[in-house]
């Protein structure tokens, strides 16, 4: 198994390198940060000093070389805006984002999987229709809109929940729900179709022939099998989740990496953008590695090859 992990990690190296390369190029063709960080009426002399201080006056390939050398050590340089190490800025906010993303993911799984199971088992009944409707809403409502809507309803009208910020678990409810809705849709849908597949399998018939109870068959025998493809979807969702936090964190003033990222992009704060992208990629790769390992736990047919 260690070998498997090692092998997987080696395979991710080119991926990470590619991601760094792309993010470097993207940020550097997207404009001069001095314009964005210094006010427009700053004299040229001061601009030059700023550029020199941050190495922006060097030829692009020199910058790239420097960047690679430092990136390998986890150093993306100082944020142009904050004058602090980009890595530090990201790490400071990673906890908040993780809290939000993990909660949203758990929520999505805890709602989406049972919903999908029920929809599959009670195919074409009211429960199925309800699940499909929620799935549709999850696909049709933009999360920024949903976010604002929930703020107005639950914070302003009903006064049940705070409108934003991070703090108690009450603060977590609205952003996590908003973030989860899109995920729920896909998870429920996938679970439903996988369950439909599995419920038709011979071994389910075998389980019935043994005289096992229906709920045991559905929630243990069937779900354990159906969960494997669902897990893949969940792993891939992490990528979407990372995109989703950008919007959700902005709407709910959540002090996370997504908000940092979008501000950094707007400000062309290269080091921060690169650090964020790399961290997101690492998380994605890491989560998917875990997913792969979980596969082997859930599905004994898959060895650590």
């Amino acid at each position: 198994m260690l070998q498997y992990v090692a092998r997987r990690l080696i395979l991710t190296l080119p991926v990470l390198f590619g991601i760094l390369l792309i993010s470097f190029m993207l940020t550097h063709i997207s404009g001069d940060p001095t314009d964005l960080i210094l006010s427009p009426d700053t004299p040229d002399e001061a601009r030059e000093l700023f550029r020199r201080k941050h190495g922006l006056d060097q030829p692009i390939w020199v910058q790239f070389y420097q960047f690679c050398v430092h990136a390998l050590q986890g150093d993306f340089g100082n944020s142009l805006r904050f004058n602090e190490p980009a890595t530090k800025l990201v790490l400071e906010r990673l906890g908040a984002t993780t809290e939000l993303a993990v909660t949203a993911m758990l929520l999505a799984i805890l709602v989406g999987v049972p919903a999908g199971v029920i929809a599959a088992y009670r195919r074409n009944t009211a429960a199925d229709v309800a699940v499909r409707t929620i799935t549709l809403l999850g696909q049709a409502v933009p999360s920024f809109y949903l976010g604002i809507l929930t703020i107005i309803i639950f914070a302003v009208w009903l006064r049940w929940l705070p409108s934003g910020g991070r703090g108690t678990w009450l603060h977590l409810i609205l952003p996590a729900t908003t973030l989860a809705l899109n995920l729920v849709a896909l998870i429920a849908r996938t679970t439903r179709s996988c369950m439909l597949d599995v419920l038709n399998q011979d071994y389910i018939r075998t389980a019935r022939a043994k005289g096992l109870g229906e709920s045991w068959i559905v929630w243990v025998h069937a779900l354990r099998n159906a969960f494997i493809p669902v897990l893949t979807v969940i792993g891939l969702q992490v990528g979407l989740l990372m995109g989703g936090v950008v919007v959700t964190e902005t709407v709910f003033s959540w002090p996370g990496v997504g908000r940092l990222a979008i501000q950094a992009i707007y400000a062309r704060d290269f080091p921060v953008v690169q650090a964020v992208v790399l961290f997101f990629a690492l998380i994605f790769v890491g989560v998917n590695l875990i997913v792969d390992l979980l596969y082997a736990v859930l599905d004994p047919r898959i060895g650590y090859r």
Partner: protein
Amino acid sequence: ATLTVAQNFDPQTLWPNGTTASDNLNAGSAIVEALFWVDPHGEEFKPLLATSYELEDDTAVLVKLREGVKFTNDEPMNADAVVHSFNVFIDKEKSPAYARVSDPFASIEKVDDLTVRIKLKYPFPPIELALSQLYITPPGYWNEVGLEAYGQKPVGTGPFVFDTWARDDRLVMKANADYWGKLPEGIDEIVWRPVPDDIARAAGLTTGEYDVASNLAVTSAMELENNPDAKLVPVPSYRIYQIILSSLEEHKSPLMDKKVRQALNYAVDKQAIIDNLFFGNAVALKGQVLREPQIGFNPDLEDYPYDPEKAKQLLAEAGYPDGFEITYKFPSGRYAQDREVSEAVAGMLTEVGVKTNMVVLEPGEFLRQLRAKELQPMAFVGLAPQDDPDLQVSQYHSSWRYSYMNSPELDALIDAGKQEMDRDKRVQIYRDAMTLMRDEAPIIFLYGGVDFYAVTNRLENFMARGDGRFFFYDTRLQE
């Protein structure tokens, strides 16, 4: 009690001379104070850490400091601290953001413990403005921790002391028990919350989570008007909204023709925009880029009236009886309702036959193009230089980085005004400049913005300034 303030963004640094962004300054200057400040009420120049200044000649200023003031780490606030702060301030590498204001400063010398002499490179009429932006930091602590760490955990003389800061979440300050002046009443603690979404900011105020919310969208503001627990504070902003009409040679377009530029001014119903998009909460420009109380404001000038017929006639005279097509750039998300205003203006121009190809720009790209003089031939901008006619008008000087006009006459007036230390003469120069600009119509004169703050009724005497700054001196928070 605790006062919670919701702004758009988390400060990048709490060292006020680190950036010019108002969200930073509002928080930073509650801890670190400047020599002077401009009172939002009277727009008057008042002493803070200094007690007075005196122009020894056109290029030498003698500043007297307040006695007995200490930084919260017990370092004394004295001439040494000012000299130290001054030297950092004029170092363009350390405080590039202030490079334009610090440019006239040449050097400083300590006269005695509470007196310093500042030398200027050239006569500089808005010297008060410059002095009000020099923030005084304790040299001992500064040298110990360095510029970056200072910004993360500043020590100053202000009414509040830094407590904790969870990035992008909350910045907590406690009242400074040893404050040299009068502490705001009832505020033991200020919590600064960054809330980027306009609606969320307003929502949080409605629910009582925030006591002060800045920079509200006009739609949210309207709603808050009916809130019994909070009051809406509209503050006319220094920001002047206009549509650039480039007349530069290299930007060939129908706008090269003065008549066309005037025609466009006639074609836009500014009052309708103000009334409908801002619910009346904006100030129509009087055909000039200076505001009513500003030095140089020309009371004799009138705005271009809304007159589409006249506009068509002028267009016809200029050789465009059927109008023309033109590119129109504008940012989305940079200014209040920038997108709506742009769409409204474009709609109005269509009525007189000018079809616009609208190009929306992401704010970052917008700023880049502004500076690179690429916002041609026509673009929506809101310029907010510091509160001085020269800083305002010199943006139309042909040598200015993003001036989209080239008028030797205007250049001459600007150059004259820049050095004129005599107030009355200076007023006349800028009035002439305004008259000239109205006629040349280098821009479509739109409106002066209004910033909206919402403040809980518990807070009395909240003061906000047209540059997005607000202060807690003299405020009172009820239990």
